[in-house]
C-alpha cells in the first residue's frame, strides 16, 4: 500500500525525536511501505521480532483486531543506525493487544543512534484492552524513544489501556524520551501510563560484586532483569530467550 511520498519533519508530532537525516537517506518510498495484518475474530497472533541492522530502517505495521481477537508484538530494536518501528493497532469489541518493546544500544561511528517505537492504539469499540511495556537501555550518546498514542472512541466504554515506559542510561550522554498521548472520548475507561528514566542501581551492583559477581556480569544481570518486564506477557519461553539474548548480545559488544 503506497501513500503520498513526502518526508516528515520534526514538526510532525510522531517524528519529533526521529533522525531526520537518516530518514532522508532512506527516502520517502521506504516510508510509504506498510505491512498489514488482520487478526480474525476470536483468534490469536504473536509476532516476535529482532529489528535493526547497520543501515537506517523503518518498519510500519498496521494491525486490525476483530472482535475478541488477541495480538502480541514483542520486539527488540537494536539497530546500528536509526531504527524505527511503528505499530498502528485497531481494536474491535473485546479485543486485546499486548506490546513488549526493548530499544537497546550505543552509538555508531557517526555518533549517537536513535532507536524508537511509535504506537497508535485505537480502541474503536467497547471492552477492548491493551497493554504496552517498553524498556530503553542506552549508552554512548544514543537515545531510545517511545511515542505512544492511545485513542478511545466515544462509544468504546470499558476500555482498559495501559502504557509503561522505563529508560536505563548506562552512561552520561545517552537519553530516553517518552511521549504518552491519550485521546479519550468515552467516559467509562481505564487508561494508565507511567514513565521513568534512571541510571544503573549502583547499590545492587555493589551487592552483587560483594558476593563475587564480576562487574560486567552484574551489569548484564541487572539489564536482563530490567528488560525482562517487556517480555513477561510472552508465553513462549524459547522466543523469550531468543529476544533476551538478542538484546543482551548488544550489551556484550559494548565497551562500558
Amino acid at each position, binding site marked *: 500500500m503506497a501513500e503520498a511520498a513526502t518526508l516528515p519533519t520534526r514538526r510532525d508530532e510522531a517524528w519529533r525525536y526521529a533522525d531526520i537525516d537518516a530518514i532522508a537517506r532512506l527516502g520517502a518510498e521506504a516510508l510509504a511501505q506498510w505491512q498489514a495484518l488482520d487478526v480474525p475474530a476470536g483468534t490469536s497472533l504473536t509476532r516476535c521480532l529482532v529489528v535493526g541492522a547497520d543501515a537506517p530502517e523503518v518498519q510500519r505495521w498496521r494491525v486490525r483486531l476483530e472482535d475478541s481477537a488477541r495480538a502480541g508484538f514483542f520486539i527488540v530494536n537494536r539497530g546500528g543506525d536509526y531504527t524505527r518501528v511503528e505499530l498502528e493497532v485497531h481494536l474491535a469489541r473485546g479485543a486485546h493487544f499486548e506490546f513488549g518493546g526493548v530499544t537497546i544500544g550505543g552509538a555508531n561511528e557517526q555518533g549517537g543512534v536513535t532507536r524508537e517505537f511509535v504506537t497508535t492504539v485505537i480502541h474503536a469499540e467497547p471492552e477492548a484492552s491493551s497493554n504496552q511495556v517498553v524498556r530503553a537501555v542506552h549508552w554512548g550518546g544514543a537515545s531510545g524513544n517511545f511515542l505512544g498514542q492511545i485513542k478511545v472512541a466515544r462509544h468504546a466504554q470499558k476500555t482498559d489501556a495501559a502504557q509503561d515506559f522505563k529508560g536505563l542510561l548506562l552512561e552520561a550522554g545517552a537519553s530516553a524520551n517518552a511521549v504518552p498521548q491519550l485521546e479519550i472520548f468515552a467516559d467509562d475507561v481505564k487508561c494508565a501510563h507511567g514513565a521513568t528514566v534512571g541510571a544503573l*542501581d*549502583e*547499590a*545492587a551492583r*555493589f*551487592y*552483587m*560484586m*560483594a*558476593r*563475587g*559477581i*564480576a*562487574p560486567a*556480569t552484574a551489569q548484564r*544481570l*541487572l539489564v*536482563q*532483569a*530490567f528488560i*525482562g*518486564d517487556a517480555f513477561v506477557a510472552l508465553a513462549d519461553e524459547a522466543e523469550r530467550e531468543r529476544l533476551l539474548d538478542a538484546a543482551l548480545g548488544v550489551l556484550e559488544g559494548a565497551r562500558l
Partner: protein
Amino acid sequence: MLEITNLHVSVADKPILKGLTLSVPAGEVHAVMGPNGAGKSTLAHVLGGKPGYEVTAGSVTFRGEDLLALEPHERAARGLFLGFQYPVEIPGVSNVQFLREALNAQRKARGEEPLSGGEFLKLAREKAALLKMDMEMLKRQVNVGFSGGEKKRAEMVQMGILDPAFAVLDETDSGLDIDALRIVGAGINAIMRSADKAVLLITHYQRLLDVVAPDKVSVLADGRILETGGPELALRLEAEGYDAVLA
C-alpha cells in the same frame, strides 16, 4: 587472618576512621561494639570495597594479601563475606540465579569447576534448612518483599552457600525478633565456627553475643579501637554503657 593497621578512612573528605588497628586470627570470633557514629559501618564497607570510601593511610592484609588493592568481587573470591546491615533488593533477579552466579564466579576465580543446577539446588536447600527458611523464598526475587528479619536470614543463607573463610557481619542482629535472633546466631555458629575461619561481628547489643559467644570484644569509638578484652567487656558495656566504660 585479617590484619588492620593504622587505618584512616574518609568519606567525602570527612575523616571517619582515624588510625584503627585490629587483628583477627583464624578460629576467632571478634565482636566490635561502639556508639552510633563511631565508624562501625564504615569499617565494614571499606573491608567489602564499597565505592566512596577513601583510604588515606594504613593497610589491611587478608591472608597475607593487600585486601585494599582488590575489587569487591575479588575479595569475595578470596573468601571474604560482607553481611549487609541493609541487604539490597534486586527486582527481576531470583535468589537462586543470583547465588548460583555468585558461587560459580567465585569457584571459577579459584580454578574450581562450576556447580550444576542440581548440585546447586541441593546445597541451597541444605543451607536454607539450616536457617529455617522456606526454599520457596529462595526462588523469589532477591530480598524483594522480604521483611527485615527475612532479609537478615537470607543473608545467612547466602553466607552458608558461599562458605567464606572470613565474615564481616554488619549489625546482622538489627531488625530481628528473639526467635529469629536465635536462628541467625545458630546459623553463624554452624557456618563460621571453625579453626580455619574467622568472624568480625559488628553489633550494638549483647543479645546476639549471648548466642554467638565471641572470643574477643573490641570497642570502636571516634574512629579507633579504644579497648579490647574478652566477652566480659561486652557485658560491662551492656551494664554500664559506653561513656562509663570509656571514661
